[in-house]
């Protein structure tokens, strides 16, 4: 047991340079047989790029990958699969219309007379499911499976190609605590079979409980490595953050004032048996934290009139506002900066100017016709104000960087009269420089007397930007933190439905 296990996979000096950005800088990493390697780091630290290199989706700029004593300058998707590297993705990649066996055997179906032999496929898949302790059979349609069950299907898929390294990317982000425990159990069984697991997660507790070793990435570099007995919450957070969180905070110019947005007993379609009570004062940035699936986005959708409100009341400056469509919400000064800006926030093929004026086009008309010069004037003003970097007003938004795209979404709302602005993951996919600009803009907006609700899964952002933090758990607000209570530990505590004052975790 004492001998150094054989390295399954070794990365040597991997560097990846995108135009203008160094995503990975000289990363060296080894994964041993039967080991669970915890990989942590903030969003944008380079974890996904590293995994994409392992999956053969992108080629590194420099460095090599050593598998079975052989060095590769890059992997192709096929080489990666043949080397036994398998992925269990954050967003599951299953065919919902097929059954479990078909998904597990996808692309490698046993054939008989050129047709898929369903029997042999089943016989092949059933033992895998058994080994994972699945409570469903190979014939079950994937459509009816829970996310945790689907994850097992993904793992079975990995096992069916004789995976030696399984990379799990935020595997528990949508799981309940019990399902999470079950997954950790599966991981320890895999480990016993000699399979290596790279476990990527923001959930430090899970990393702590399953990892043999933790490597932390920060800004494309390895920030540090922790051996099994050195893995603690504090040590991991130190490595991830590497700087003082409070440095982000921009204090408000003025005290927040009454009015703003009150959410009273609101019931969302996602949790029809729970109520949400929340009040966002004018001039305040209220951070809304919580795990994925805790009902934050659903609340935002109800406030903005996309989903129907099932009960309760929303008041703006003391007046109840009935909202049944985004049009209504906008008329009452409630705006949403959505999570998926390319899908819901922007019409990416349209030019910058048309995106900025889309929501308030009627204000730029004379005799019902759109006045181009008025539109352009607004676009120019907003571009200057938000320093949107674009070649021109008529450039299609699709060619801009993530940060500048997000600024176009902001420009759309800032050119109008906001009272309440809901930000859903305002800096997802935005580079570090632009992030700070966006935080400044959010604060500026608050200082103008706007009530701001900022949904964010980025801990640094929630803690750094908010004036208060509300945490959601299973469709209700599980607690509200004042600035002096702000820390990752408290937020996480509330996010998993526990009280603040219970004893310090193990």
């Amino acid at each position: 047991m004492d001998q150094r296990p054989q390295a399954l996979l070794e990365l040597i000096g991997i560097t990846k340079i995108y135009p203008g950005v160094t995503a990975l800088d000289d990363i060296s990493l080894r994964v041993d047989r039967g080991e669970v390697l915890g990989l942590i780091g903030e969003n944008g630290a380079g974890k996904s790029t590293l995994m994409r290199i392992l999956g053969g989706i992108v080629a590194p700029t420099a460095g090599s990958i050593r598998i079975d004593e052989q060095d590769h300058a890059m992997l192709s998707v096929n080489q990666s699969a043949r080397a036994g590297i398998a992925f269990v993705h954050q967003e599951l990649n299953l065919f919902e219309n097929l059954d479990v066996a078909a998904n597990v055997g996808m692309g490698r179906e046993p054939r008989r007379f050129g047709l898929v032999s369903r029997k042999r496929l089943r016989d092949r898949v059933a033992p895998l499911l058994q080994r994972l302790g699945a409570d469903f059979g190979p014939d079950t349609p994937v459509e009816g499976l829970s996310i945790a069950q689907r994850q097992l299907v993904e793992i079975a898929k990995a096992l069916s190609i004789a995976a030696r390294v399984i990379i799990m990317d935020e595997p528990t982000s949508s799981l309940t605590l019990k399902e999470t425990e079950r997954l950790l159990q599966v991981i320890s069984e895999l480990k016993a079979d000699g399979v290596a697991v790279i476990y990527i997660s923001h959930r430090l507790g899970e990393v702590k409980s399953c990892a043999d070793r933790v490597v932390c990435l920060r800004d494309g570099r390895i920030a540090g490595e922790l051996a099994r007995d050195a893995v603690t919450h504090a040590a991991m957070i130190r490595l991830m953050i590497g700087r003082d969180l409070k440095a982000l905070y921009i204090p408000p110019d003025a005290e927040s004032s009454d009015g703003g947005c009150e959410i009273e007993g609101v019931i969302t379609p996602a949790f029809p048996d729970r109520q949400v009570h929340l009040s966002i004062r004018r001039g305040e940035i209220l951070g809304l934290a919580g795990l994925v699936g805790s009902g934050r986005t659903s609340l935002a959708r109800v406030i903005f009139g996309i989903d129907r409100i099932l009960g309760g009341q929303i008041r703006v400056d003391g007046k109840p506002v009935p909202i049944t469509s985004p049009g209504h919400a906008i008329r009452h000064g409630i705006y949403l900066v959505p999570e998926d800006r390319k899908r819901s926030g922007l019409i990416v093929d349209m030019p910058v100017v048309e995106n900025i004026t889309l929501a308030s086009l009627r204000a730029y008309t004379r005799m019902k016709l759109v006045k181009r010069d008025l539109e352009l004037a607004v676009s120019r003003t907003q571009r200057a104000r938000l320093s949107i970097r674009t070649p021109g007003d008529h450039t299609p938004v699709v060619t801009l960087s993530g940060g500048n795209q997000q600024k176009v979404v902001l420009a759309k709302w800032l050119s109008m009269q906001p009272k309440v602005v809901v930000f859903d993951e305002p800096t997802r996919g935005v580079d570090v420089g632009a992030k700070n600009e966006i935080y400044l803009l959010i604060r500026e907006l608050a200082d103008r007397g706007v009530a701001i609700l900022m949904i964010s899964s980025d801990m640094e952002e929630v803690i750094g930007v908010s004036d208060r933090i509300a945490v959601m758990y299973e469709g209700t607000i599980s607690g509200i933190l004042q600035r002096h209570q702000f820390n990752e530990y408290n937020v996480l505590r509330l996010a998993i439905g526990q009280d603040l004052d219970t004893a310090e975790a193990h």
Partner: protein
Amino acid sequence: MLPRKELGLLLLLMLISGITAILNPLFLSGVNLLDMANLIGLFGIFSIGEGLTIITGGIDLSVGSMFSLLGVIFIDLVANRGVSWPLSLMAVLVGGLVLGAIQGFLITRARMQPFIVTLCGLLIYRGAARYYTDDSTMGFGYGDSADTLSWLASGRSFGIPHSFIFLIIVALILGVVLHRSVFGRYLFAVGKNEEAARYSGINTNLVIAGAYVLSGLLAGISTIFLVFYTNSVSPSTFGNFYELYAIAAAVLGGCSLRGGEGSILGIVLGTALLQVLQNLVNILGIPSSLNFAVMGTVILLGVFADQQLQKRRETAIAMGAQRARPAGSVVTAAAPKSGG
């Protein structure tokens, strides 16, 4: 200055016309040109409506059958029931409007696919028209043809067919609506990204339904022109395949079936090109059985060429963007063409 797409189409139209005229000078004779103008007018009006639905990302397959149903109703009202022509005209226009509104309702409120809804419209209206007339041809009798309306629909002023003049008017009005009004901007927005449009407060259902209502109304108007062009309606063949002409014209004119792209000028030029192609088949003595084959080939080539050009343009833009970035120095050597 014409946009690139329309300019290309215009050049193609002139090229084909030029070649045809060289091969057979009769192509440019007054009679032939006026005949073509009339047909362009007839087909252009409803093609514009079709184009609007395509811009929203949908399609309207029902217009050909609408002609048949509204056509037999119109002749029945005027010739058999002695209803005055203004009333009969209103009936047809309102009929088109209502059919369009029903389709728009089903597409937006009932969330059914435009293809399915209008395909069923195609089947239902055609069947209804044939049942209504016992499958027999209806025509105007002596003396009961609506003279004024007949002149309006099939007459000429200053030697120009009224259908063509009317097309120009419709094109001008809808050109302003599509390219200059709020509704027009919304049509493009909805076609490009319905969800983002909704998130910007646009009542997307109303916008989409509006396109189908307009398409129905324009189909109603076209019915009148077509009825007076043929002077009779055989319910089983009247307007057969006309929706396909309309789709072809719109696509040729730059409308993308993915939605969010297109222009009124393009649709009109597309219609013109299709009619020139039909005319060319006749006038050059190509067997008329090849009519559709010629049309199909030209559309295929046209759309293919357009996509290739677009791809090249996009690559050029991407290269330009690459060059603007400081670190991306790898590919710059290849593209020093435009000095700016």
